[in-house]
């Protein structure tokens, strides 16, 4: 039908007709002397349009690091004032100095190092096993809408279930052994990591798949080269949450399941403090557990996640 509607328009202005397309297409490079200025024009425009991102200065970094430290100082100050003014019984609430003293004693006789090592070893080993189990499960579920529909709700449910709830069952199955602790840790961490991977893939824009299709990617190439790299931030978020769940579950398991063939970890120390009504030990143990969580986040997952997001332009400089 377009043949009938073909129309021509006479030149009305009488001005010479400039037509960039008059030449037939030739595969020969254009010897146009204007090409050089085109390059300069582009370079100038590019320089104007890219906003230079100023590197974050040292002073603002230091300020950012000092702020939480100041908050910790404020908490200790309030704690100390309370102890001085209200004078609670020391076996109910000891002062900061006393807890620090206990911490020093625990470190001096090597007990703190031993329990920290035991717990960290289990925490990291449990987390590593969780990653090894969760990743293939996640990849499988991501591949199949059917499996995802079937198992997705169960995994989301497991993620909400506090993994301490598995301790009684684990003790019945495995007795007071390390297997009990690892089982509880896995039940805590695996669902988080699987879910992280699934939601990472769910959030991959459909446009990426279309681009991949146009570029000629087959099903597997699409998954390996486009979908999985695009889902990486979600996976790392899942790993981070998986670590948090591993650590929590581990502490819960260690507090409840003590004795037998079990090694003595931080949770054990905490439970021992309770049994001996030694509040200073209890608080020292809580402080150690808290600090380890913070340190792993600050040294491992925080930087990993920030680096990943910054390299994708998903993190605005200065907000990090």
């Amino acid at each position, binding site marked *: 039908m377009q043949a009938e*509607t073909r129309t021509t328009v006479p030149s009305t202005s009488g001005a010479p007709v400039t037509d960039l397309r008059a030449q037939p*297409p030739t595969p020969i490079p254009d010897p146009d002397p204007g090409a050089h200025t085109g390059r300069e024009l582009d370079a100038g425009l590019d320089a104007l349009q890219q906003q230079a991102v100023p590197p974050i200065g040292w002073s603002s970094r230091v300020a950012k690091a000092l702020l939480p430290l100041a908050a910790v100082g404020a908490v200790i100050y309030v704690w100390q004032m309370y102890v001085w003014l209200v004078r609670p019984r020391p076996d109910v609430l000891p002062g900061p100095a006393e807890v620090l003293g206990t911490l020093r004693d625990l470190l001096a006789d090597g007990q703190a190092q031993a329990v920290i090592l035991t717990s960290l070893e289990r925490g990291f080993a449990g987390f590593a096993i969780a990653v090894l189990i969760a990743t293939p499960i996640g990849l499988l579920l991501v591949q199949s809408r059917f499996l995802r529909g079937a198992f997705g709700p169960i995994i989301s449910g497991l993620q909400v279930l506090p993994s301490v709830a598995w301790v009684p069952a684990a003790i019945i199955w495995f007795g007071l052994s390390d297997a009990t602790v690892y089982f509880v840790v896995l039940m805590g961490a695996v669902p988080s990591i699987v879910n992280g991977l699934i939601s990472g893939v769910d959030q991959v824009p459909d446009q990426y798949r279309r681009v991949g299709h*146009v570029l000629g990617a087959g099903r597997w190439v699409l998954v390996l080269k486009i979908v999985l790299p695009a889902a*990486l931030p979600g996976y790392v978020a899942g790993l981070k949450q998986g670590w948090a769940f591993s650590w929590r579950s581990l502490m819960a398991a260690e507090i409840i399941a003590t004795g037998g063939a079990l090694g003595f970890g931080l949770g054990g120390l905490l439970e021992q403090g309770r049994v001996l009504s030694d509040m200073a030990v209890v608080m020292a143990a809580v402080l150690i557990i808290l600090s380890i969580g913070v340190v792993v986040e600050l040294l491992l997952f925080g930087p990993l996640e920030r680096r990943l997001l910054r390299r*994708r*332009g998903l993190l605005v400089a200065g907000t990090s």
Partner: protein
Amino acid sequence: MSEAPCIAIKQLSKRFSPLGPLVLDSVDLDVAPGEFVTLLGASGCGKSTMLNLIAGLERPTSGSISAPKVAFMFQDASLFPWLSAQRNVELALELRGVPRLRRSIEAARLLDVVHLTDAAHKKPHELSGGMRQRVALARSLAQDREALLMDEPFAALDAITRDLLHEELLRVWRETGRTIIFITHNVREAVLLGQRVLLMSSRPGRVVGEWSTTGQDAAALTTHITAELRKEIRRHAS
């Protein structure tokens, strides 16, 4: 047109659901090898649908499309944010089957074609909108397909950048002799770039006008086509 067309579309119709509206209605279109065609129409008239059909991203409801494998350029550059400009281009080469050793040389050459040698190692988010579109152009050239489909690729850019990209695209077209279908809703752009301008109607989408720009006064033709486009839009006013 005596040569066999590069892209031949016959009686192409498209509905997105059996009871949904007819988006494209019996469209016929032949595009000759090496031809630069611009497709013009109000937004929502089915231009993108048409390109997606040609690229095989959608299935036709009826009618036939004969087209080679095509390269595609989207309105947003659609670069992968975790890859540098160079690696984005290299990925296209890799998926085309170019051996590893030749990829980096070839990608560097293509980035030079679009004047981006200095930005080769930057990530998409570090580039301006115009630079991202040039990377996307380099990537579509890396696909080395005889036809290139462009879906409003410069619509989101400012006028200065767009003018430069027009010149660059025409230069690339002259140098490579690719067949190009370029979508726009900007009449001036359509007349400036295309050898042939097609006007589409909305609901249902049909080709309702066709003009050759060769030997025409661009300004007069622009005025004329703008009037036609407005007439077409006004038809829906009631």
